[in-house]
């Protein structure tokens, strides 16, 4: 037998059992895949279905295009080439505003999928059970990538179907839109396959892959804002550079995705046999042998464990606040481009469009800041069921300290996130209006949302302490508040449905005057929910998974 044949057989041997693994992984991941695919394609379909109604005439779309043709807005949407096609193609408008976001979500779906199926399984020693079977060293990775490939094709097909009815087709545009998402999916699956070999742990493999995603969003944003080559550095940018649904539509930028994916997959397969099971190429670094003096209470621990979420909240709200603020200057023109329904959503009874949209934006900011409070409360549940809470509960800590400190951490996270959103809404609004008096308006309006944000957070905590097994309850509450905020005017929701939302009771400042009584009452409601939450924490058993 020649050396070449031996090498080939060795190569194939490392793939033994891939088919079996693939079937197993498919079964295990079906909920994950169904959830993500339905969410991505469903959300895209709903948005695509609403676009023609929202922007029926070409003049309206062109006028709207003028307002979003600023560096700040382009950095959060897409290249200027799409904007130039707004008039002739609703699809171009849709693709311009969506690809960055659906692309980023696609990336998240696939990088999490790959790390889940490879490194995370090694850490829980699930795949040890398989490795002991006649299964090749590369079979894990091959099965995971094959599954990702199938999912990527499915996603592309669903995305194409979701936008099939959009006006402005330039020749198989829907197919290209779908294929662009398949390309993003494949690239990030391949990237995660590499980071899964490099990183010391599953969590750092995710972290590295997310850094690549951050890089993609950043370079696409810079390139689109400055209208320069930076977009070409971004896998999401390549999808945008197809100029799908515009007259300049082209397919070849996706070839870049294919090349990068192939190279990354090759690298991952080369690395996987060069590392040990359960250990990455980059060894996990050693940390401190002793704790810092500050780590001396359950509350200190809670704040340390949630600081990443809090930071994510601050950064998200900084970007969101700045983005909303940047719309202030062009708001008058934007109003002209809007449909009746959109004006109805924005009308909060103020004397100017700026006042109206500020009142809406600060409520949205509050709701989005509240998301991070919900995440922090969710962390308390994880600590509890995964058994780490037991170590704290057995120490000299009252129940108000653990799990009680998670309410404190959640309130801190939502407060600082809301304040950050307010500061950057004020700053960027002032800059876009050229009028610094807006700074205090924007900030003050944001701060006035705090009682409602606190009430939402305290509700989430009370739900956690009284009904620990119903973790989804807080998300239902959040979605409901979102529906009330966004669609109350459109859907003619009954009075009681609106009354549930604390945001509805606060005055629509600056569109209306501050209603101090309402502010006091919502704050009191937040206080009551807090007391209820602590009472729940004191009375119930700890949950063990």
């Amino acid at each position, binding site marked *: 037998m020649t050396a070449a044949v031996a090498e080939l057989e060795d190569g194939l041997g490392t793939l033994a059992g891939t088919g079996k693994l693939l079937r197993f992984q498919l079964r295990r991941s079906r909920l994950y895949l169904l959830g993500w695919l339905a969410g991505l394609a469903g959300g895209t379909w709903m948005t695509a279905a609403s676009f023609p109604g929202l922007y029926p005439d070409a003049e309206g779309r062109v006028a709207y295009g003028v307002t979003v043709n600023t560096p700040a807005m382009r950095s959060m949407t897409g290249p200027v080439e799409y904007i130039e096609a707004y008039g002739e193609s609703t699809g171009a408008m849709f693709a311009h505003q969506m690809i960055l976001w659906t692309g980023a979500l696609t990336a998240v779906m696939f990088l999490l999928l790959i790390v889940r199926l490879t490194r995370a399984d090694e850490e829980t020693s699930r795949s040890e059970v398989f490795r002991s079977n006649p299964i090749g060293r590369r079979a894990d990775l091959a099965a995971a990538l094959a599954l990702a490939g199938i999912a990527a094709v499915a996603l592309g097909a669903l995305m194409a179907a979701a936008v099939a009815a959009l006006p402005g087709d330039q020749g198989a545009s829907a197919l290209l839109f779908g294929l662009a998402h398949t390309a993003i999916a494949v690239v990030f699956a391949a990237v995660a396959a590499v980071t899964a070999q490099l990183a010391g742990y599953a969590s750092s493999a995710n972290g590295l892959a997310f850094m690549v995603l951050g890089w993609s969003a950043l370079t696409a944003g810079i390139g689109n804002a400055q209208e320069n080559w930076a977009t070409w550095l971004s896998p999401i940018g390549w999808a945008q550079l197809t100029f799908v649904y515009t007259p300049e539509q082209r397919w070849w930028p996706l070839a870049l995705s294919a090349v990068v994916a192939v190279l990354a997959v090759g690298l991952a397969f080369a690395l996987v046999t060069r590392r040990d099971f359960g250990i990455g190429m980059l060894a996990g670094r050693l940390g401190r042998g002793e704790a810092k003096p500050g780590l001396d209470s359950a509350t200190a621990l809670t704040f340390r464990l949630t600081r990443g979420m809090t930071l994510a909240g601050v950064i998200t709200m900084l970007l969101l606040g700045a983005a909303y603020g940047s719309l202030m200057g062009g708001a008058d023109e934007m109003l002209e481009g809007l449909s009746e329904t959109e004006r109805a959503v924005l009308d909060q009874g103020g004397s100017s469009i700026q006042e109206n949209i500020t009142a809406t934006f600060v409520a949205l900011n509050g709701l989005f800041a509240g998301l991070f409070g919900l995440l922090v409360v969710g962390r308390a549940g994880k600590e509890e069921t995964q058994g780490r809470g037991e170590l704290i*509960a057995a120490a000299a800590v009252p*129940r108000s300290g653990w799990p009680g400190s998670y309410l404190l951490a959640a309130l801190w996270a939502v407060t600082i996130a809301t304040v950050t959103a307010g500061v950057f809404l004020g700053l960027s609004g002032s800059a876009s209006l050229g009028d610094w008096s807006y700074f205090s308006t924007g900030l003050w309006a944001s701060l006035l949302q705090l009682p409602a944000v606190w009430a939402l957070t305290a509700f989430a905590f009370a739900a956690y302490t009284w009904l620990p097994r119903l973790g989804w309850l807080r998300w239902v509450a959040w979605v409901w508040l979102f529906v009330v905020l966004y669609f109350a005017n459109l859907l003619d929701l009954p009075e009681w449905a609106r009354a549930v939302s604390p945001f509805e009771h606060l005055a629509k400042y600056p569109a209306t005057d501050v209603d101090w009584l309402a502010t006091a009452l919502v704050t009191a409601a937040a206080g009551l929910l807090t007391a209820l939450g602590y009472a729940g924490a004191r009375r119930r058993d700890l949950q*063990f998974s």
Partner: protein
Amino acid sequence: MNAVIRTEGLVKRFGHVTALDRLDLEVAQGETHGFLGPNGAGKSTTIRVLLGMLRSDEGRAELFGADPWKDAATLHKRLAYVPGDVALWPGLTGGETIDLLGRLRGGVDKAKRDELLERFDLDPRKKGRSYSKGNRQKVALVAAFAADVDLLLLDEPTSGLDPLMGAVFNECVKEASAAGRTVLLSSHIMSEVEALCERVSIIRKGVIVETGTLAEMRHFSRSRLRATLKNPVRGLEDHAGVHDLSTDGLDIECSIDTAALDEVLAQLAVAGIAALTCEPPSLEEIFLRFYGDELAASGVPNGEPK
């Protein structure tokens, strides 16, 4: 007797499952008490009730004479706990975790902590996520033994430790006991309990089926007797205290009630004894007696091994 732990008629239900079914447990001050039972018998549930993590449905539980549910935080200053399956914070190092747990109890004795790290051969600079099961266990053990407390609640603390570390653990428990600490050691490793515990409680399906010192337990159970005689002996099988007698020429073997030893040995001495061994029952044999029916149900013929 001054009881550190006392439960009376303790009942804990999870939905339809009754985990503790009128459990009575008493551990005196300064005693190292073995808490024996297989998985699912209710050991961890008992300890979690004693820690105030679970609220009992009926009956009473007392820790240092106080209610572990109401006074949890105050009582926890006086105790340290090692769970059977230690989960650590993935981002915190072992050293950070040990210091945090120590500080939550009022302070860390650094010299003691470093000495224990040395003895358990544990690198405190590794992150929680990179420790193996045994090393996670060591983190909790170092934190517990370094604590200046009156009571140690150890729930299957040696699961995942290698025999070398098991020996270090035994040393540490003996030192704690010598320092006057009360220890409740839940385990299903008989040799460990035999080596460390003065008194033992055996739990089965949420009930304490036997409690006492090892000597007392042995007294009420049978020893294994083997002898080679010089002359045949007669009438042994009629003795009420002799069981499972097998005779092979001059070699005899039987189980024998401790109370019958005097008479039977006298009878053998008359026949003349060439060789004799008499083993008291091991804790394992005592333990298995209480689970004989379950073993029979799973296809093991006889409650006693061999």
